[in-house]
């Protein structure tokens, strides 16, 4: 069980309010991702749930019980830190055993759980090593192993993949998702990387300056962003946001169109511009189109084969059915 509810939770450091009162519910077994630019308060929110920071107001309920004043160890949550926070003087086995040792679980049960976790995480051959002798990915797995053996009500991950290289990150992303499916335990995951959020989450919580901008499934956020901030944050490359006369023509202050929803051709579309930088990914090509008369540069996704060159004049056709409209306050017009 692991249903976590925040009621009017707020946090201030001195006079600075980092998190104004907010409400949030994370259901049992859900994979929730807190995402936002750095300094948006997502890590602080996670630490409030963990109990490593005291709340300035409001209540935190874990499985219906008020845990606001409960010390971190008693909340039944396990955390994986960005630096992994392994104990350098202990072997992998002792690192994983540490929480069980503190809880006074008997030796045989400790060994059983360690073997199980080590087998699941491919660590069996490394149990006698120290963290200093392991690679980044292996350290990450030890940190996860240390969290698993506690059999917690929920796992908390604080940017766990940001210290890994790109290839490993993709691998660990899959492993964590797989782990979630297998354990079926609530997980709360903090990241600034919207790709991680989109690929892993059941529920994404987009934060800006301590305020929840939108909560929803990855596709909800992609299809119906509630405001221009979410629209620009979710999706890669970023959504094109266009203001001015073209937006007014569609009855909005700002219109948004994703790069993948614009067709590029030699002629015939309603918009036109000059090709700037082209990013060739093989499967796709991203064109940066300038001088469209729409304000900023427009990013367009095309097939990998499309061969426009720098300086070519091209024509753009946006898909009107997936055009996003926002009012003067940046809020979505339904």
């Amino acid at each position, binding site marked *: 069980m692991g249903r976590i509810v925040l009621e009017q939770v707020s946090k201030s450091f001195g006079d600075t309010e980092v998190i104004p009162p907010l409400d949030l519910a994370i259901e049992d077994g859900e994979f929730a991702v807190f995402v936002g630019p750095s300094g948006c308060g997502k890590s602080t929110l996670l630490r409030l749930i*963990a*109990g*490593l920071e005291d709340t300035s107001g409001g209540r935190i309920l874990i499985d219906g019980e008020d845990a606001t004043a409960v*010390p*971190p*160890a008693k909340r039944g*949550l*396990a*955390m994986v*830190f*960005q*630096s992994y*926070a*392994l*104990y*350098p*003087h202990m072997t992998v086995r002792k690192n994983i055993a*540490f*929480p069980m040792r*503190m*809880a006074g679980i008997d030796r045989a049960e400790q060994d059983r759980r360690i073997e199980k976790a080590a087998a699941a995480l491919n660590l069996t051959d490394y149990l006698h090593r*120290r963290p200093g002798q392991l690679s980044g990915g292996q350290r990450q797995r030890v940190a996860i192993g*240390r969290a698993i053996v*506690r059999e917690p009500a929920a796992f908390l991950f604080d940017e766990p993949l940001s210290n890994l290289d790109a290839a490993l990150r993709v691998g660990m992303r899959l492993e964590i998702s797989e782990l979630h499916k297998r354990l079926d335990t609530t997980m709360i995951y903090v990241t600034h990387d919207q790709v991680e959020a989109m690929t892993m989450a059941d529920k994404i919580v987009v934060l800006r300056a301590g305020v929840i901008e939108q909560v929803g499934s990855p596709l909800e956020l992609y299809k119906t962003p509630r405001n221009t901030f979410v629209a620009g944050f979710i999706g890669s490359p970023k959504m094109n946001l266009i203001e001015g006369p073209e937006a007014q023509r569609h009855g909005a202050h700002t219109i948004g169109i994703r790069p993948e929803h614009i067709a590029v051709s030699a002629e015939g579309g309603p918009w036109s511009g000059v090709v700037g930088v082209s990013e060739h990914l093989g499967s796709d090509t991203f064109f940066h189109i300038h001088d469209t008369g729409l304000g900023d540069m427009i990013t367009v996704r095309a097939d990998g084969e499309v061969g426009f060159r720098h300086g070519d004049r091209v024509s753009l056709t946006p898909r009107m059915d997936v055009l996003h409209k926002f009012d003067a306050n940046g809020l979505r017009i339904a």
Partner: protein
Amino acid sequence: MATQHSRSAARAMMAPAVVLLLGWMLIPLGMTLYFSFKKYLPLRGGDLGWVGFENYERFVSSSAFWPSVQATLIIVGGVLAITVTLGILFALLLDQPMWGQGVVRILVIAPFFVMPTVSALVWKNMFMDPNNGLFAHLWRFFGADPVVWLTEAPLFSIVLIVSWQWLPFATLILLTAIQSLDGEQLEAAEMDGAPTIKRFWYIILPHLSRAITIVILIQTIFLLSIFAEIFVTTGGAFGTKTLTYLIYQRVLESQNVGLGSAGGVYAIILANIVAIFLMRIVGKNLDA
């Protein structure tokens, strides 16, 4: 890249320093060894010729030898125990954020800058004096008889004085070690259910182990040769005669250079045994 030419230039430029350092060490060592095999009494006939190992036998068989070794070990061990324990405690306290941190830290380090002779005299006359000392006033305030520190508890008094001098050093080294501990490790241990005492025992203390061995190593080397504190307080009386002090008495009070030199050679051997022993521990620690 080091060429043949630059290497020989470097050698030539380092030579004076190397020669000076070697001379500084080898000449006294050689003279000590030379005199230790001689009967040499400056005021009673001067150089009286070679005597083989007689000085070595006499130094060890003297009734003052074993008590002096014991006194040395008690002082070194006592000071190490006090400075390391209190040093860890002070370092933990000073690591806490508080008002006036900078000033407090300087005050804690201050005793290290006081010369040993001065600090021993201050302790002897201002704190431990049985009539006018602060301790005597304190004891009388509570209705107790003042302790005549340097007579009744001479070894403990010297341990106290020397500990006061070396506590800042231990605190300073341990404080920097504590500050290098990753805060996330402590938070992880907190989440793992370790209360404060266990966090200290399982996380902080192992993290400090290297710094503690370094403190022990450096202090031992300096503590084996403490002299001024004994000279100005008890003058070697009441069982406070250490090996260093015994050597001093043999050479200068008994005017027996040969016998004192033999004692010096013993002291060199003892210090080297300690150094090898401790270097192995540190070496093992640095590998991990």
